[in-house]
């Protein structure tokens, strides 16, 4: 039994990493999504828009730029799925959730910064995504994306 395991050491390691990636990755993703939706509900009163300042000058108290960023990496199992998907083409669902999580997290951090500054709305939101590990599918490099969200937080004069 042990000899068979030793003979197929790389296969065993591969299966172990895949299993680890699958379980840990799934748990981490589920936990992250529930934390995201909880915080999104909390910050619902602070809207974020992509157009420029819609308010007349008299209504404004002040404004400041806020930003939030996050780097999220993909797990071993999902990377494997993506590599397989590369052969056939089509939707790479495993990467879709990765980028979705990163974007929502970045926006939440930006909103949090705006709330701490006592602002009421964030205007002119810009999102920027970049892959820092050169190619996300390269086995040697780290498959991760960075998302930066930035905008101008505006405080309104209370009537």
């Amino acid at each position, binding site marked *: 039994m042990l000899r068979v395991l030793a003979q197929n050491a790389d296969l065993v390691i591969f299966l172990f*990493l895949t299993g*680890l*990636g699958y379980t*840990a*990755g799934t748990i*981490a*993703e589920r936990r*992250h999504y529930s934390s995201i939706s909880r915080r999104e509900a909390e910050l619902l009163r602070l809207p974020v828009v992509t157009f*420029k*300042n819609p*308010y007349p*000058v008299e209504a*404004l*108290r*002040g*404004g*400041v*730029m806020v*930003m939030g*960023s*996050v*780097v*999220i*990496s*993909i*797990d*071993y199992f*999902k990377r494997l799925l993506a590599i397989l998907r590369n052969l056939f083409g089509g939707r790479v669902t495993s990467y879709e959730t*990765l980028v979705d999580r990163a974007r929502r*997290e970045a926006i939440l951090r930006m909103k949090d910064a705006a709330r701490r500054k006592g602002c009421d709305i964030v*205007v*002119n939101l*810009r999102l*920027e995504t*970049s*892959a*820092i590990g*050169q190619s996300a599918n390269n086995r040697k*490099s*780290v*498959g*991760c994306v*960075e998302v*930066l969200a*930035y*905008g*101008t937080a*505006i*405080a309104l004069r209370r009537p």
Partner: protein
Amino acid sequence: MYITNIETIPGKTIVEHFGLVQGSTVRAKHIGRDLMAGLKNLVGGELKGYTELLSESRDEALQRMIREAKSMGANAVVNVRFATSSVAQGAAELFAYGTAVRVE
């Protein structure tokens, strides 16, 4: 120093334009962080080391932009934009640019 990414500073009026100001920095991740990221990469999730590294670098790019604006005599920068590009394997350039103005 007022910084926004819209064309005005809320609650202020722009009295003078100075033109484009920019700041950039190129950062490489260091081996310790890379190792940790490599381990974290197996299970997925946020890479805190990288998040910190990039936000520190972005702050530095912003500071350089602000310093340039100050040297022109401006007291605000409007319409700030960010750009990120990986110039080499393992190094990223973070770039911030905007228009320096004086407000009252």
